[in-house]
C-alpha cells in the first residue's frame, strides 16, 4: 500500500504497541495533540494515557525516565519534539544510556525519536542534523531511514533492539516521500546499509533526505553517461563498512553526501575508512558534499545556499567523473 514516510513510522510504532504491552511512548504533546508532526496521532485513544504519556517540557527527564523504565523491563519510545532539543537530554543519552551495558551489564533497550533536518524554513533551532554527536558515542545505535519501507521496518527493529537507539526522522520527508509499505509485520535489520541504486562509475554514500537528492542527480548523470551507485547507510552506528567498501571497490570513485555540516561530520569518517581500506581501488580522491560550517539559517535564500542539493552534487560528480 502506498504510504507516506510519516505514516510508515506511525504504523510501525502502532504495530509494536499492539504486539508488545511493554512498549510505551513518552514525550511532549504526543497524547492529546498526537505529536507536533502527528506521528503519534490516535494512539492515546487506542492505548490510554499510561502508554502514551504527555510529559512536562523536560527532555532530560524524558530520556532519563525512558532509561529507568527500560531497567524495569519496559520498551520505551521517547519523542524529542525536534532533534534540536535533544541537547537538553544529552547527558542522559551519552553518559547514562550509552554506557550502562558496558559499565554494569544493564541493558537500556529504548528508542529516542528525533525529527531532524532542514528545508522547512525552521531556522537554527528546528532544522539541525545532530547525528554525528551520537555516532561519536559507543554504546548507542543511530538510525535514519530514507524511504517509507525502511521507516516502518527500522522503527520496528529499533523498538525490538536491546540497545539504546537514536532514531532520526527527516522532517522534510514526512509527507513528501511515499512508497510501498506492506501491511504485514516486517523489520529492517539495524547495521545494514542498502544499495539504493546500482551503478558502475561512482558511489554516492549518503543517508536520510540526501538519498533522494542523490537519486535525482543520478538520473541526470545517467543521461551524461555516468552510472551512479547510491548507498543508503540507514544505520549510521554501527556502520555497515562492508557495503560501502564493496561498492567503492566496484566503482573506484566515491562521494560522501550528508545534510549535516562538514567538519566533524560522517563524511570525514567514511572518507578515512575508504582511503584506509580501499585505497588500491580508488581512481580519484574521495569527495565530501555537506552543509557548510554555519548554523542553519532561516531566510530562504540562505537556507538554499546552506543545504546540499542536486546542483551542488552534480558539480562534484562531474568533476570526479572527469578525474
Amino acid at each position: 500500500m502506498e504510504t507516506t514516510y510519516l505514516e510508515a513510522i506511525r504504523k510501525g510504532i502502532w504495530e509494536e504497541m499492539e504486539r508488545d504491552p511493554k512498549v510505551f511512548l513518552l514525550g511532549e504533546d504526543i497524547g492529546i495533540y498526537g505529536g507536533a508532526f502527528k506521528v503519534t496521532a490516535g494512539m492515546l485513544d487506542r492505548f490510554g494515557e499510561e502508554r502514551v504519556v504527555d510529559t512536562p517540557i523536560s527532555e532530560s527527564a524524558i530520556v532519563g525516565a525512558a532509561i529507568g523504565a527500560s531497567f524495569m523491563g519496559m520498551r520505551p519510545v521517547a519523542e524529542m519534539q525536534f532533534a534540536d532539543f535533544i541537547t537538553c537530554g544529552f547527558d542522559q543519552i551519552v553518559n547514562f544510556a550509552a554506557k550502562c551495558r558496558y559499565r554494569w551489564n544493564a541493558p537500556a533497550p529504548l528508542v529516542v525519536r528525533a525529527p531532524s533536518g532542514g528545508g522547512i524554513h525552521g531556522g537554527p533551532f528546528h532544522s539541525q542534523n545532530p547525528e554525528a554527536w551520537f555516532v561519536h558515542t559507543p554504546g548507542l545505535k543511530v538510525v535514519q531511514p530514507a524511504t517509507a519501507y525502511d521507516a516502518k521496518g527500522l522503527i520496528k527493529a529499533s523498538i525490538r533492539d536491546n540497545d539504546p537507539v537514536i532514531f532520526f526522522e527527516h522532517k522534510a520527508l514526512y509527507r513528501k516521500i511515499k512508497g510501498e509499505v506492506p501491511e504485514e509485520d516486517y523489520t529492517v535489520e539495524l547495521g545494514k546499509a542498502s544499495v539504493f541504486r546500482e551503478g558502475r562509475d561512482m558511489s554516492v554514500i549518503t543517508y536520510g533526505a540526501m538519498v533522494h537528492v542523490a537519486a535525482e542527480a543520478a538520473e541526470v548523470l545517467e543521461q551524461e553517461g555516468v552510472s551512479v551507485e547510491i548507498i543508503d547507510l540507514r544505520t549510521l552506528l554501527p556502520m555497515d563498512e562492508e557495503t560501502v567498501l564493496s561498492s567503492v571497490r566496484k566503482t573506484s570513485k566515491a562521494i560522501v553526501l550528508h545534510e549535516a555540516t562538514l567538519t566533524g561530520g560522517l563524511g570525514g569518517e567514511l572518507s578515512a575508512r575508504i582511503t584506509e581500506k580501499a585505497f588500491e581501488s580508488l581512481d580519484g580522491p574521495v569527495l565530501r558534499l555537506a552543509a557548510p560550517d554555519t548554523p542553519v539559517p532561516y531566510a530562504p535564500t540562505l537556507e538554499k545556499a546552506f543545504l546540499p542539493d542536486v546542483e551542488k552534487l552534480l558539480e562534484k560528480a562531474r568533476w570526479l567523473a572527469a578525474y
Partner: protein
Amino acid sequence: MAAVKPVSPLMDAGTNTEAGLSLRFLYYMSLMREVEDRIERKLYRQGKILGGVYVGRGQEAICVGAGLVAEPDDVLFPCHRDLGLYFIRGIGPAEVLAQYMGRVGGLTQGRDGNMHMGDLKRRIVAIISAMAASVPVAAGAAMALKQQRSRNIVFVFFGDGATSRGDWHEGINLAAVQKAPLVLICNNNQYAYSTPTEKQMSCEHVADRAPGYGIPAEMVDGNDAWAVYEATQRAADHARQGLGPYLIECKTFRMTGHSAHDGADYVPKHLWEEWGAKDPIARMENLMLDRGYAAREDLESLQDQIRRQVDEAVAWAEASPYPEPETLARNVYEESR
C-alpha cells in the same frame, strides 16, 4: 523475589524487633565505616586504589536507616555516599573492594570504579558521575512499576549539591505529575565538594523545595538511624498508597573531604567537633547499651567480627586479577550468544 542474601550470618537472626533492628543498623553502619576506612585510609594511600574515593563517613545512618525500610524488590538508586545499601542488598565487601581496585571480582569487573556499581538482579542501580542524573531515571523506574501495578517502589538518594542540577528538578517534577511511587532521600551534609549549602541555594532547607513540586517533605536528624528509618517508613507508605513522591531531607555532616585527596581545610574546625559528637555509630551503640539490647562485650565482638570479615574481603579482592586487555571491547552492545 530478588536474591538478597545477608552478607553476614549474624544478620540471619535480624528481626524487626527494636533490639533486632538496632543490631542491624549497627552492623551495616559499622561494616560501611570499616570498609570505607580501609578504602580511604589504607588501600588508597597504599596505591592499591588508583581512582577517586568518595566515602560516607558520618552519614551511615541515612542509607542504612532508609535501606532497611525497602522491600527486597523495591528499587534502590544510591548516591556515592551510600555504600550501606549494597550490603543490605547482599553484595559483600569483597565485591565492593575488588570494584574499587578495578579487579574482575568487582561488580563492574573493572569497567568502572568506586561507587559506580549496580546489579539489576538485585534491583540496585549504578550512578553516573553527573550529580542527580539518577533522579529522572528513578522517576521512570517508578512510572514503570506503577504501570505494572507492582506494589514495589523506588528510592533515590542524592546530596544537597545535587539539588542544584536541572535533572533533580525535572525528575521530581515528572514523578510528581505522574504520581510515581518515588521516595527521595537527601543527605544534606552541608558541603558540595568545597561549596557550602548557602552558595548552592538561597532557601534554608532542601525540604523547602518540595512545595514547589506539590509533594510532601520532612526533615530528620540524619545521624539517627531510627529517625531516618521512621521517616522513610512514612515516605514509603505514602508512595505505596499511590500518593506520589515524598522527600526526606536528612541533616548530617560529611566527616571527611569530598574525596580521599581533599583535606577539607575549608571546613571550620568547630564543625568537625560538633558533628563528631553526633556520630551515628556511637549513638546507636549507646542506645543499645542504655536499653539493654547489648552488653559492651557484645559490641566489641561485633566490631571484631566485622574487622575479620573485612580482612578476608581485602585478601579476596587483592587476589582477584585485573581484567584481560582482550576484553576491552566486549559488551559495548548486546553480543550474540
